[in-house]
């Protein structure tokens, strides 16, 4: 079991020796390595984010299950229907799907060292996200029903609103990444966790929309 020999496991020797020098180190308040400094252990941040997105996805799954059940068993009052105008949402879907590709281009540009192009693609992604939100607003203002009109109306606004909240948050995250990817910022070709996290999140929000579009508009 030589692989378990002391010293082979943790490269962060400096922190260790600082502690070893003071055997009863109850006096230290902060651990030597917090979220920023991984002190020799693996970086689990993307894994943690992915786990969170599983949880977030379950929230949507709950909403989808509720919506599908409502639709299957709860008749709507006379005069209202589950039909929706399709043109604008379809354009919106296209915008969001394209934005996933533009974000991907931003990431690959950063990894190949072209930081300026990365920032342009990020701005393009932001523009697509904002366009999506604007399209959503236009749709809201032109719908023939309000939040409390009937069960479908309530479910529609809850689902699209919850998703819109995610898109808004995503746009803010991309803007932060865009700022951090400037010359001398904290996101560099070598160290770009922020960009990867925002990208994973953005793809997630995009994927959720595709499902939502399918069951809310097409079904």
């Amino acid at each position: 079991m030589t692989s378990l020999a002391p010293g082979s496991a943790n490269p962060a020797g400096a922190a260790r020796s600082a502690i070893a020098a003071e055997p009863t180190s109850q006096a230290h308040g902060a651990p030597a390595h917090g979220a920023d400094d991984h002190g020799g252990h693996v970086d689990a941040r993307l894994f943690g984010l992915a786990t969170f997105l599983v949880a977030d996805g379950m929230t949507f799954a709950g909403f989808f299950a509720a919506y599908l059940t409502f639709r299957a068993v709860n008749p709507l009052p006379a005069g209202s229907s589950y039909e929706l105008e399709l043109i604008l949402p379809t354009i919106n879907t296209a915008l969001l799907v394209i934005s996933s590709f533009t974000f991907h281009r931003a990431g690959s540009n950063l990894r190949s060292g072209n930081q300026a192009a990365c920032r342009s693609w990020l701005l393009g992604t932001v523009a697509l996200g904002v366009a999506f939100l604007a399209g959503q607003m236009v749709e809201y203002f032109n719908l023939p029903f309000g939040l409390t009109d009937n069960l479908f109306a309530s479910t529609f606004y809850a689902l699209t609103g919850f998703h819109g909240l995610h898109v808004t948050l995503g746009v803010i995250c991309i803007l932060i990444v865009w700022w951090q990817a400037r010359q001398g910022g904290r996101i560099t070709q070598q160290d770009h966790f922020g960009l990867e996290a925002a990208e994973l999140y953005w793809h997630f929000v995009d994927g959720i929309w595709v499902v939502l579009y399918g069951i809310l508009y097409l079904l």
Partner: protein
Amino acid sequence: MTVASPTDFEPQGLQPQGWLKYFSFSLDHKVIGLQYLVTGFIFYFIGGALAGVIRTELTSPISDFVSRETYNEVLTLHGTVMIFLWIVPVVNGAFGNYLIPFYVGARDMAFPRLNAVAFWLIPPAGILLIASYFVAGGAAQSGWTAYPPLSLSTPAIGQVIWILSVLLLGGSSIFGGINFIATILKLRRPGLKLMQLPMYCWAMLGTSILVVLSTPVLAGTLILLSFDIIAHTGFFNPALGGNVVVYQHLFWFYSHPAVYIMVLPAFGLVSEILPIHARKPLFGYTTMVYSILAIVVLGLVVWAHHMFTSGTPPWMRLFFTIATSFIAVPTGIKFFNWLATLWGGKLALNSAMLFSCGFIINFVFGGITGVALAQVPFDIHVHDTYFVVAHFHYIVYGGTVFVIFASVYHWYPKFTGRMLNEDLGRLHFLLTFIGFNLCFTPQHWLGLNGMPRRVAEYDPSFTTLNQVSSVGALLMAISTLPFLINVIWSAFAGELAGDNPWKALTPEWLTTSPPPVENWVGEAPLVTHPYDYGIPEGKIDLRVASGADLWFGGKR
């Protein structure tokens, strides 16, 4: 707050030291674990006082001690406090945070800051919940299940505060779950295999998977419920075309796994305690692991057994009866493995062991009534009666709370460096065991004879058994006195424990008591299998030491 980099690592006074650190935004997993533990116990006493009000009211068949509305509020607060502020934070947050980094050979959790955030969501949520008693209309009155349309017609402010509080606690739970999954899967020291992990790691991995998959569904459901209350949408309001059964499905999709979120960590803890005090390896390690995973999978597909009287179609009843009955198989495997661990061991009948054995006895009883409740014909008869109340308390009190006490007796020497008094501990066990069974056994009869739960008044023919039950509750209340005296007195004057008073092999015992900030001075100790007790003399070195010299790096 800045985190010291390795080069300038000095005690810089960034965080309070000494006892003050327990009131700070500490990033140390051990401090956070004890913060969870003490906060949990404070809410346990609050929830216990609320239970005292319930049992006092139920000593007579009429509503005389408190009004019916107050009774409903007390009932709701009791359930919510005990589940979301006591059991879940303590068996997951407290012991999980304290022990998991040791067990995987890490110096802290994967996300220390997220960990601190998860803890600090709990006190405000708890204060919010308790404070809702004083707002206009009082606290929520619809029970911990908050079923609509009841929760739509009871006073709105209290109900909305209840939702807000549960959302905060759910968020805390999800953050904790993400942290445990990442820590167990990603932070294991190199060479440490999954099948070498102590059983509590497996229990916490399974629990955290349930938390991450099911808690968000409850959060989404409660958001929809709050829309119904605040914005007058009709998701769950039949008067507006909504569907109450959908709420029940979504609610129980979380709240049945929640039972496993409360009891799986207890399975893990008791699997750590028994081998050490029986001086034997844990029987059937591999089957224990697969049982946990089977419970996780089955636990996600049994929720509708809470809804057999909610107009569920026959095929659904059939499926959920069968799935629920199947859970008895992995649970039974665990039960017999614990018995086999005890069989022929050199048992030390100390407080930790007594509470663990109490757990086994109570839990098997609650498990059997659980299998009975899974059968539709029987369930329809006793649904919403005291039989369900009795079953549930046998699982969460007789099961989990007994394990929490066992764990406190077992790990207190590690937390504080001092032993707890064994005589007071045994007295505590005796009073708790008798009080608990006296309180909840009669409720099976009450339920079978049709006494409905959650009602302040009852048929006078049920009076005697209710009074017996209340005497049991009084004994349980008294039983906390020797415990409280013990933990407070021993912290200052208890016998010094040394580093490894139980001669245990799991890594938390291979460091000082209490452990240093980053768990071990120097490298983490080497590990092989965590349950190598009873190995013949000479093959294993049980010298009490902190460091690698105790842990033999070779193969068995």
